[in-house]
Protein backbone atom coordinates (compact mmCIF):
# COMPACT_ATOMS: atom_id res chain seq x y z
CA UNK A 1 0.00 0.00 0.00
CA UNK A 2 1.27 3.47 -0.87
CA UNK A 3 2.29 5.76 1.94
CA UNK A 4 -0.25 8.33 3.05
CA UNK A 5 0.38 11.70 4.63
CA UNK A 6 -2.03 12.57 7.45
CA UNK A 7 -2.34 15.95 9.14
CA UNK A 8 -2.85 15.24 12.87
CA UNK A 9 -4.08 18.17 14.93
CA UNK A 10 -4.00 21.01 15.88
CA UNK A 11 -7.70 20.32 16.56
CA UNK A 12 -8.32 16.68 17.38
CA UNK A 13 -10.96 15.07 19.63
CA UNK A 14 -8.31 13.53 21.87
CA UNK A 15 -5.76 16.32 21.98
CA UNK A 16 -6.19 18.87 24.76
CA UNK A 17 -3.46 20.99 23.17
CA UNK A 18 -3.07 22.40 19.66
CA UNK A 19 -0.07 20.35 18.55
CA UNK A 20 0.13 19.63 14.85
CA UNK A 21 1.98 16.63 13.45
CA UNK A 22 2.36 15.67 9.82
CA UNK A 23 2.29 11.89 9.93
CA UNK A 24 3.46 9.64 7.11
CA UNK A 25 1.73 6.28 7.49
CA UNK A 26 2.13 2.99 5.71
CA UNK A 27 -1.22 1.21 6.08
CA UNK A 28 -1.85 2.01 9.78
CA UNK A 29 1.78 2.11 10.88
CA UNK A 30 3.43 5.50 11.43
CA UNK A 31 6.66 5.87 9.48
CA UNK A 32 7.52 9.51 10.12
CA UNK A 33 6.26 12.44 12.19
CA UNK A 34 7.10 16.10 11.60
CA UNK A 35 5.89 18.74 14.08
CA UNK A 36 4.40 22.11 13.22
CA UNK A 37 4.14 24.71 15.93
CA UNK A 38 2.81 28.25 16.00
CA UNK A 39 -0.93 27.98 16.63
CA UNK A 40 -0.66 29.65 20.05
CA UNK A 41 2.65 31.50 19.65
CA UNK A 42 2.35 34.82 21.48
CA UNK A 43 5.93 36.09 21.59
CA UNK A 44 5.80 36.58 25.38
CA UNK A 45 9.61 36.68 25.68
CA UNK A 46 9.62 39.85 23.58
CA UNK A 47 7.47 41.62 26.20
CA UNK A 48 10.53 41.70 28.49
CA UNK A 49 11.75 44.62 26.36
CA UNK A 50 8.73 46.78 27.18
CA UNK A 51 7.67 45.59 30.67
CA UNK A 52 9.89 46.14 33.69
CA UNK A 53 11.34 43.20 35.56
CA UNK A 54 8.62 43.17 38.24
CA UNK A 55 5.78 43.38 35.70
CA UNK A 56 7.33 40.37 33.95
CA UNK A 57 6.29 38.16 36.89
CA UNK A 58 2.67 38.58 35.79
CA UNK A 59 3.68 37.81 32.19
CA UNK A 60 5.61 34.61 32.96
CA UNK A 61 2.76 33.38 35.17
CA UNK A 62 0.68 33.40 32.01
CA UNK A 63 3.11 31.34 29.93
CA UNK A 64 1.17 28.35 31.24
CA UNK A 65 -1.87 28.12 33.47
CA UNK A 66 -1.05 24.71 34.89
CA UNK A 67 2.42 25.63 36.15
CA UNK A 68 2.01 29.39 36.60
CA UNK A 69 3.59 29.38 40.06
CA UNK A 70 6.67 27.48 38.88
CA UNK A 71 7.27 29.82 35.95
CA UNK A 72 7.21 32.76 38.36
CA UNK A 73 9.43 30.89 40.83
CA UNK A 74 12.05 30.16 38.17
CA UNK A 75 11.98 33.75 36.96
CA UNK A 76 12.13 35.26 40.48
CA UNK A 77 15.03 32.99 41.44
CA UNK A 78 17.00 34.31 38.48
CA UNK A 79 16.28 37.96 39.27
CA UNK A 80 17.05 37.34 42.98
CA UNK A 81 20.46 35.93 42.03
CA UNK A 82 21.22 38.98 39.88
CA UNK A 83 20.12 41.36 42.66
CA UNK A 84 21.76 39.29 45.42
CA UNK A 85 18.45 39.04 47.30
CA UNK A 86 18.30 36.47 50.08
CA UNK A 87 14.87 34.85 50.33
CA UNK A 88 13.56 34.45 53.93
CA UNK A 89 13.31 30.80 55.13
CA UNK A 90 9.52 30.88 55.56
CA UNK A 91 9.09 32.05 51.97
CA UNK A 92 11.24 29.13 50.77
CA UNK A 93 8.92 26.64 52.50
CA UNK A 94 5.79 28.38 51.22
CA UNK A 95 7.24 28.15 47.71
CA UNK A 96 7.58 24.37 48.16
CA UNK A 97 3.94 24.12 49.30
CA UNK A 98 2.54 25.93 46.25
CA UNK A 99 4.97 24.20 43.88
CA UNK A 100 3.91 20.76 45.10
CA UNK A 101 0.21 21.67 45.03
CA UNK A 102 0.76 22.57 41.38
CA UNK A 103 2.41 19.21 40.77
CA UNK A 104 -0.52 17.35 42.37
CA UNK A 105 -3.20 19.15 40.38
CA UNK A 106 -1.21 18.96 37.13
CA UNK A 107 -0.69 15.20 37.43
CA UNK A 108 -4.35 14.67 38.40
CA UNK A 109 -5.38 16.70 35.37
CA UNK A 110 -3.08 14.60 33.19
CA UNK A 111 -4.29 11.27 34.60
CA UNK A 112 -7.87 12.35 33.85
CA UNK A 113 -7.06 13.39 30.30
CA UNK A 114 -5.06 10.22 29.77
CA UNK A 115 -7.97 8.04 30.94
CA UNK A 116 -10.31 10.00 28.66
CA UNK A 117 -7.95 9.44 25.71
CA UNK A 118 -8.64 5.71 25.70
CA UNK A 119 -12.32 6.11 26.49
CA UNK A 120 -12.28 5.57 30.27
CA UNK A 121 -14.57 8.52 30.97
CA UNK A 122 -15.63 7.57 34.49
CA UNK A 123 -11.97 7.44 35.55
CA UNK A 124 -11.42 10.83 33.92
CA UNK A 125 -14.24 12.26 36.03
CA UNK A 126 -12.91 10.65 39.22
CA UNK A 127 -9.42 12.18 38.80
CA UNK A 128 -10.84 15.57 37.99
CA UNK A 129 -13.20 15.38 40.97
CA UNK A 130 -10.19 14.82 43.26
CA UNK A 131 -8.33 17.62 41.52
CA UNK A 132 -11.08 20.05 42.53
CA UNK A 133 -9.97 19.69 46.16
CA UNK A 134 -6.52 21.00 45.22
CA UNK A 135 -8.04 23.79 43.16
CA UNK A 136 -10.06 24.80 46.24
CA UNK A 137 -6.84 24.90 48.30
CA UNK A 138 -5.16 27.06 45.65
CA UNK A 139 -8.12 29.43 45.57
CA UNK A 140 -8.23 29.67 49.37
CA UNK A 141 -4.50 30.27 49.76
CA UNK A 142 -3.71 32.38 46.71
CA UNK A 143 -7.06 33.85 45.70
CA UNK A 144 -7.16 32.10 42.37
CA UNK A 145 -7.75 28.59 41.10
CA UNK A 146 -5.24 28.46 38.26
CA UNK A 147 -2.94 31.46 38.04
CA UNK A 148 -1.24 31.45 41.44
CA UNK A 149 0.27 34.88 41.76
CA UNK A 150 2.14 34.67 45.07
CA UNK A 151 5.79 35.01 44.03
CA UNK A 152 7.62 38.30 44.25
CA UNK A 153 11.29 39.03 43.76
CA UNK A 154 12.72 38.28 47.20
CA UNK A 155 10.04 35.91 48.51
CA UNK A 156 6.27 35.51 48.49
CA UNK A 157 3.43 37.96 49.08
CA UNK A 158 0.90 35.68 50.79
CA UNK A 159 1.11 33.61 53.95
CA UNK A 160 -0.68 30.47 55.12
CA UNK A 161 -1.86 30.65 58.75
CA UNK A 162 -2.19 27.73 61.18
CA UNK A 163 -5.92 27.31 60.63
CA UNK A 164 -5.46 27.18 56.87
CA UNK A 165 -2.52 24.78 57.27
CA UNK A 166 -4.72 22.40 59.29
CA UNK A 167 -7.44 22.50 56.63
CA UNK A 168 -4.91 21.88 53.82
CA UNK A 169 -3.45 18.87 55.66
CA UNK A 170 -6.95 17.47 56.22
CA UNK A 171 -7.73 17.97 52.53
CA UNK A 172 -4.52 16.17 51.55
CA UNK A 173 -5.52 13.17 53.68
CA UNK A 174 -8.73 12.93 51.62
CA UNK A 175 -6.84 13.43 48.35
CA UNK A 176 -4.30 10.74 49.25
CA UNK A 177 -7.05 8.28 50.20
CA UNK A 178 -9.03 8.93 47.02
CA UNK A 179 -5.96 8.75 44.76
CA UNK A 180 -4.96 5.43 46.33
CA UNK A 181 -8.50 4.12 45.75
CA UNK A 182 -7.97 4.71 42.02
CA UNK A 183 -4.53 3.08 41.94
CA UNK A 184 -5.81 -0.37 41.00
CA UNK A 185 -8.05 1.05 38.30
CA UNK A 186 -5.40 3.13 36.54
CA UNK A 187 -2.42 0.82 37.03
CA UNK A 188 -3.84 -2.73 37.08
CA UNK A 189 -6.73 -2.50 34.63
CA UNK A 190 -6.49 -4.88 31.64
CA UNK A 191 -7.55 -2.24 29.09
CA UNK A 192 -5.15 0.38 30.44
CA UNK A 193 -2.26 -2.08 30.31
CA UNK A 194 -3.17 -3.17 26.77
CA UNK A 195 -2.95 0.44 25.62
CA UNK A 196 0.23 1.38 27.50
CA UNK A 197 2.57 -1.51 28.34
CA UNK A 198 5.35 -1.79 25.75
CA UNK A 199 3.91 1.14 23.73
CA UNK A 200 6.13 4.10 22.89
CA UNK A 201 9.27 2.70 24.47
CA UNK A 202 12.19 5.08 24.70
CA UNK A 203 15.45 3.71 26.03
CA UNK A 204 17.49 5.31 28.79
CA UNK A 205 20.24 6.25 26.32
CA UNK A 206 17.83 7.72 23.75
CA UNK A 207 15.89 9.69 26.37
CA UNK A 208 19.13 11.24 27.58
CA UNK A 209 20.54 11.90 24.11
CA UNK A 210 17.30 13.52 22.93
CA UNK A 211 17.15 15.80 25.96
CA UNK A 212 13.96 14.41 27.53
CA UNK A 213 12.78 16.12 30.70
CA UNK A 214 10.70 15.29 33.78
CA UNK A 215 8.65 12.08 34.02
CA UNK A 216 9.49 11.30 30.37
CA UNK A 217 13.18 11.12 31.37
CA UNK A 218 12.66 9.47 34.76
CA UNK A 219 10.34 6.78 33.35
CA UNK A 220 13.30 5.66 31.21
CA UNK A 221 15.43 5.03 34.28
CA UNK A 222 17.29 8.32 34.77
CA UNK A 223 17.04 9.69 38.31
CA UNK A 224 17.29 13.35 37.42
CA UNK A 225 15.06 15.97 38.97
CA UNK A 226 15.83 19.67 39.32
CA UNK A 227 14.60 19.58 42.92
CA UNK A 228 17.85 17.71 43.66
CA UNK A 229 19.73 20.94 42.94
CA UNK A 230 18.30 22.30 46.18
CA UNK A 231 16.28 25.39 45.33
CA UNK A 232 13.62 26.78 47.70
CA UNK A 233 13.46 24.57 50.84
CA UNK A 234 14.05 21.24 49.07
CA UNK A 235 17.52 20.73 50.66
CA UNK A 236 15.78 20.52 54.07
CA UNK A 237 13.24 17.92 52.90
CA UNK A 238 13.54 14.18 52.44
CA UNK A 239 13.31 13.71 48.70
CA UNK A 240 14.35 11.05 46.15
CA UNK A 241 13.20 11.23 42.51
CA UNK A 242 10.50 8.80 41.39
CA UNK A 243 12.07 6.55 38.77
CA UNK A 244 10.71 3.81 36.49
CA UNK A 245 12.84 1.77 34.13
CA UNK A 246 10.68 0.40 31.30
CA UNK A 247 10.52 3.68 29.33
CA UNK A 248 7.03 2.92 27.93
CA UNK A 249 3.69 4.70 28.24
CA UNK A 250 2.84 2.62 31.31
CA UNK A 251 6.08 3.61 33.07
CA UNK A 252 5.35 7.29 32.44
CA UNK A 253 1.86 6.80 33.95
CA UNK A 254 3.25 5.05 37.05
CA UNK A 255 5.87 7.78 37.43
CA UNK A 256 3.27 10.57 37.48
CA UNK A 257 0.94 8.63 39.75
CA UNK A 258 3.68 8.07 42.34
CA UNK A 259 4.80 11.70 42.07
CA UNK A 260 1.34 12.75 43.32
CA UNK A 261 1.84 10.75 46.52
CA UNK A 262 5.39 12.08 46.85
CA UNK A 263 4.17 15.69 46.41
CA UNK A 264 1.60 15.18 49.19
CA UNK A 265 4.42 13.96 51.44
CA UNK A 266 6.57 16.99 50.52
CA UNK A 267 3.75 19.41 51.44
CA UNK A 268 3.43 17.68 54.83
CA UNK A 269 7.19 17.86 55.40
CA UNK A 270 7.23 21.53 54.40
CA UNK A 271 4.47 22.42 56.87
CA UNK A 272 6.14 20.38 59.62
CA UNK A 273 9.45 22.21 59.23
CA UNK A 274 8.19 25.67 58.22
CA UNK A 275 9.68 28.38 60.47
CA UNK A 276 7.95 31.62 61.44
CA UNK A 277 9.32 34.81 59.98
CA UNK A 278 9.33 37.32 57.15
CA UNK A 279 7.74 36.59 53.79
CA UNK A 280 9.95 38.64 51.54
CA UNK A 281 13.12 40.66 51.36
CA UNK A 282 12.76 43.75 49.21
CA UNK A 283 15.87 44.11 47.03
CA UNK A 284 17.14 47.54 46.02
CA UNK A 285 18.33 48.66 42.61
CA UNK A 286 17.91 46.98 39.26
CA UNK A 287 19.15 43.59 38.03
CA UNK A 288 22.38 43.41 36.07
CA UNK A 289 24.17 40.47 34.48
CA UNK A 290 23.29 37.12 32.92
CA UNK A 291 21.73 34.21 34.78
CA UNK A 292 20.40 30.73 34.08
CA UNK A 293 17.67 29.52 36.44
CA UNK A 294 16.15 26.04 36.44
CA UNK A 295 13.32 24.44 38.44
CA UNK A 296 11.30 21.22 38.17
CA UNK A 297 7.81 21.76 36.82
CA UNK A 298 5.25 18.91 36.79
CA UNK A 299 6.25 18.24 33.18
CA UNK A 300 9.99 18.51 33.81
CA UNK A 301 12.87 20.92 33.86
CA UNK A 302 12.20 24.52 32.84
CA UNK A 303 15.10 26.87 32.06
CA UNK A 304 15.09 30.65 32.17
CA UNK A 305 17.95 32.63 30.67
CA UNK A 306 17.81 36.27 31.79
CA UNK A 307 20.07 39.03 30.55
CA UNK A 308 19.80 42.33 32.38
CA UNK A 309 21.79 45.53 31.98
CA UNK A 310 20.99 47.49 35.15
CA UNK A 311 18.13 49.31 33.44
CA UNK A 312 14.38 49.13 33.91
CA UNK A 313 13.79 46.61 31.12
CA UNK A 314 15.55 43.30 30.58
CA UNK A 315 17.79 42.81 27.56
CA UNK A 316 16.58 39.30 26.98
CA UNK A 317 14.32 36.70 28.55
CA UNK A 318 14.46 33.19 27.15
CA UNK A 319 12.24 30.35 28.37
CA UNK A 320 12.86 26.67 27.54
CA UNK A 321 9.86 24.67 28.71
CA UNK A 322 9.77 20.90 29.35
CA UNK A 323 7.36 20.13 26.51
CA UNK A 324 9.78 21.78 24.06
CA UNK A 325 12.43 19.35 25.33
CA UNK A 326 10.07 16.38 25.07
CA UNK A 327 9.10 16.90 21.40
CA UNK A 328 12.27 15.21 19.98
CA UNK A 329 11.70 12.12 22.22
CA UNK A 330 8.05 12.07 21.04
CA UNK A 331 9.23 12.08 17.41
CA UNK A 332 11.46 9.12 18.31
CA UNK A 333 8.54 7.18 19.88
CA UNK A 334 6.08 7.59 17.01
CA UNK A 335 7.68 5.75 14.04
CA UNK A 336 6.59 2.11 14.11
CA UNK A 337 3.52 2.65 16.29
CA UNK A 338 -0.11 2.11 15.27
CA UNK A 339 -1.99 5.19 14.15
CA UNK A 340 -4.50 4.52 16.96
CA UNK A 341 -1.70 4.88 19.54
CA UNK A 342 -0.58 8.32 18.35
CA UNK A 343 -2.93 10.30 20.66
CA UNK A 344 -1.90 8.15 23.64
CA UNK A 345 1.79 8.66 22.90
CA UNK A 346 1.37 12.41 22.51
CA UNK A 347 -0.40 12.50 25.87
CA UNK A 348 2.30 10.49 27.62
CA UNK A 349 4.74 13.39 27.30
CA UNK A 350 2.03 15.57 28.96
CA UNK A 351 2.24 18.21 26.24
CA UNK A 352 1.67 21.87 26.99
CA UNK A 353 1.77 23.79 23.72
CA UNK A 354 0.96 27.05 25.46
CA UNK A 355 4.29 26.66 27.30
CA UNK A 356 6.15 25.39 24.25
CA UNK A 357 5.24 28.27 21.97
CA UNK A 358 5.13 31.00 24.60
Amino acid sequence: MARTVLPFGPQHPVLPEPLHLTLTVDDEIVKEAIPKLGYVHRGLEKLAEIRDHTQMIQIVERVCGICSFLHALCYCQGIEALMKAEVPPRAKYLRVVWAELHRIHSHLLWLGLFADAFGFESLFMQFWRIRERIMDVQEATAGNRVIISTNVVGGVKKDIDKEMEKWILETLVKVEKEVNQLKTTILDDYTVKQRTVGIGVISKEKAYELGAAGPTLRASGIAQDMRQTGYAAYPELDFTPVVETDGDSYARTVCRFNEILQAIDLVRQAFAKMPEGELAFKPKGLPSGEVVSRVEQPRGEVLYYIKANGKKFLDRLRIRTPTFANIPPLLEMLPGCDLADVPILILTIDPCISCTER
Partner: protein
Amino acid sequence: MKQSVVVLDAANTKECTSENIISVTKKLKDGGNRLITLSSADLGDSIDILYHFDLDLDLADIRVNVPKGKKTPSIASVYPCAFLVENEIKEHFGVDFDGLPLDFAGMLYLDEEVQKTPFCKIGINRVETQKQEA
Protein backbone atom coordinates in the same frame (compact mmCIF):
# COMPACT_ATOMS: atom_id res chain seq x y z
CA MET B 1 28.36 21.67 42.01
CA LYS B 2 24.60 21.19 41.65
CA GLN B 3 22.98 24.60 41.39
CA SER B 4 19.52 25.66 40.39
CA VAL B 5 20.62 29.21 39.60
CA VAL B 6 23.92 30.10 37.95
CA VAL B 7 25.03 33.68 37.35
CA LEU B 8 27.08 33.55 34.16
CA ASP B 9 30.57 35.02 34.13
CA ALA B 10 33.87 34.51 32.31
CA ALA B 11 34.84 31.72 34.71
CA ASN B 12 31.83 29.49 34.10
CA THR B 13 30.99 30.37 30.47
CA LYS B 14 33.47 29.25 27.83
CA GLU B 15 33.85 31.23 24.63
CA CYS B 16 33.95 29.26 21.39
CA THR B 17 34.06 30.07 17.67
CA SER B 18 31.55 28.89 15.08
CA GLU B 19 34.30 26.80 13.47
CA ASN B 20 34.97 24.86 16.67
CA ILE B 21 31.45 24.40 18.02
CA ILE B 22 30.96 20.94 16.48
CA SER B 23 34.19 19.54 17.97
CA VAL B 24 33.47 21.16 21.36
CA THR B 25 29.93 19.73 21.50
CA LYS B 26 31.24 16.30 20.44
CA LYS B 27 33.64 16.34 23.39
CA LEU B 28 30.82 17.35 25.74
CA LYS B 29 28.59 14.59 24.42
CA ASP B 30 31.38 12.02 24.80
CA GLY B 31 31.75 13.26 28.38
CA GLY B 32 28.09 12.41 29.05
CA ASN B 33 26.59 15.91 28.87
CA ARG B 34 22.92 16.40 28.03
CA LEU B 35 21.99 19.31 25.78
CA ILE B 36 19.37 21.38 27.61
CA THR B 37 18.84 24.04 24.99
CA LEU B 38 20.30 27.04 23.17
CA SER B 39 19.59 30.66 24.08
CA SER B 40 20.27 33.70 21.97
CA ALA B 41 20.52 37.44 22.45
CA ASP B 42 20.81 40.30 19.97
CA LEU B 43 23.97 42.38 20.47
CA GLY B 44 23.33 44.80 17.61
CA ASP B 45 25.72 43.70 14.89
CA SER B 46 25.94 40.11 16.08
CA ILE B 47 23.96 37.42 17.87
CA ASP B 48 25.19 35.67 21.02
CA ILE B 49 24.26 31.99 21.11
CA LEU B 50 24.55 30.20 24.43
CA TYR B 51 24.65 26.40 24.44
CA HIS B 52 23.43 25.05 27.81
CA PHE B 53 24.57 21.55 28.85
CA ASP B 54 23.92 19.48 31.95
CA LEU B 55 26.00 16.74 33.52
CA ASP B 56 24.49 15.28 36.71
CA LEU B 57 22.61 18.56 37.29
CA ASP B 58 25.78 20.59 36.80
CA LEU B 59 25.35 23.37 34.25
CA ALA B 60 27.94 24.05 31.52
CA ASP B 61 27.60 26.96 29.10
CA ILE B 62 29.34 27.65 25.79
CA ARG B 63 29.05 31.05 24.12
CA VAL B 64 29.34 31.54 20.37
CA ASN B 65 29.16 34.99 18.82
CA VAL B 66 27.77 34.97 15.27
CA PRO B 67 27.97 38.19 13.21
CA LYS B 68 24.66 39.01 11.54
CA GLY B 69 24.49 37.59 8.02
CA LYS B 70 27.08 34.86 8.75
CA LYS B 71 26.31 31.17 9.00
CA THR B 72 27.09 28.92 11.94
CA PRO B 73 27.10 25.11 11.91
CA SER B 74 24.12 23.19 13.24
CA ILE B 75 24.98 20.83 16.09
CA ALA B 76 22.07 18.54 15.18
CA SER B 77 24.61 16.03 13.78
CA VAL B 78 25.92 15.66 17.36
CA TYR B 79 22.72 16.30 19.35
CA PRO B 80 19.75 15.48 17.05
CA CYS B 81 17.33 17.28 19.40
CA ALA B 82 19.02 20.63 18.61
CA PHE B 83 17.16 20.98 15.30
CA LEU B 84 14.05 22.41 16.97
CA VAL B 85 15.73 25.19 18.92
CA GLU B 86 18.04 26.02 16.01
CA ASN B 87 14.95 26.51 13.83
CA GLU B 88 13.50 28.77 16.54
CA ILE B 89 16.65 30.93 16.65
CA LYS B 90 16.77 31.07 12.86
CA GLU B 91 13.18 32.29 12.81
CA HIS B 92 13.40 34.79 15.64
CA PHE B 93 16.96 36.11 15.17
CA GLY B 94 17.80 35.32 11.55
CA VAL B 95 20.83 33.12 12.38
CA ASP B 96 21.40 30.68 9.53
CA PHE B 97 22.41 27.23 10.79
CA ASP B 98 24.41 25.25 8.27
CA GLY B 99 23.40 21.59 7.96
CA LEU B 100 20.00 21.69 9.67
CA PRO B 101 18.51 18.22 9.03
CA LEU B 102 14.94 19.54 9.16
CA ASP B 103 14.73 23.17 8.09
CA PHE B 104 11.41 24.93 8.57
CA ALA B 105 12.75 27.89 6.56
CA GLY B 106 11.58 30.40 9.14
CA MET B 107 8.06 28.93 9.34
CA LEU B 108 8.20 26.96 12.61
CA TYR B 109 6.02 29.47 14.49
CA LEU B 110 5.54 32.34 12.08
CA ASP B 111 3.84 32.78 8.73
CA GLU B 112 5.07 34.47 5.56
CA GLU B 113 3.28 37.70 6.49
CA VAL B 114 5.87 38.35 9.24
CA GLN B 115 8.42 40.35 7.26
CA LYS B 116 11.25 40.80 9.78
CA THR B 117 12.94 38.66 12.42
CA PRO B 118 10.83 39.69 15.42
CA PHE B 119 13.32 39.18 18.26
CA CYS B 120 16.11 41.35 16.83
CA LYS B 121 16.18 44.95 17.98
CA ILE B 122 16.50 45.91 14.31
CA GLY B 123 14.81 43.09 12.41
CA ILE B 124 16.45 41.33 9.50
CA ASN B 125 14.25 41.04 6.44
CA ARG B 126 12.92 37.46 6.57
CA VAL B 127 11.27 37.51 3.13
CA GLU B 128 14.46 38.44 1.27
CA THR B 129 16.41 35.75 3.12
CA GLN B 130 13.85 33.13 2.11
CA LYS B 131 13.85 34.29 -1.53
CA GLN B 132 17.64 34.09 -1.64
CA GLU B 133 17.50 30.55 -0.25
CA ALA B 134 14.91 29.56 -2.85
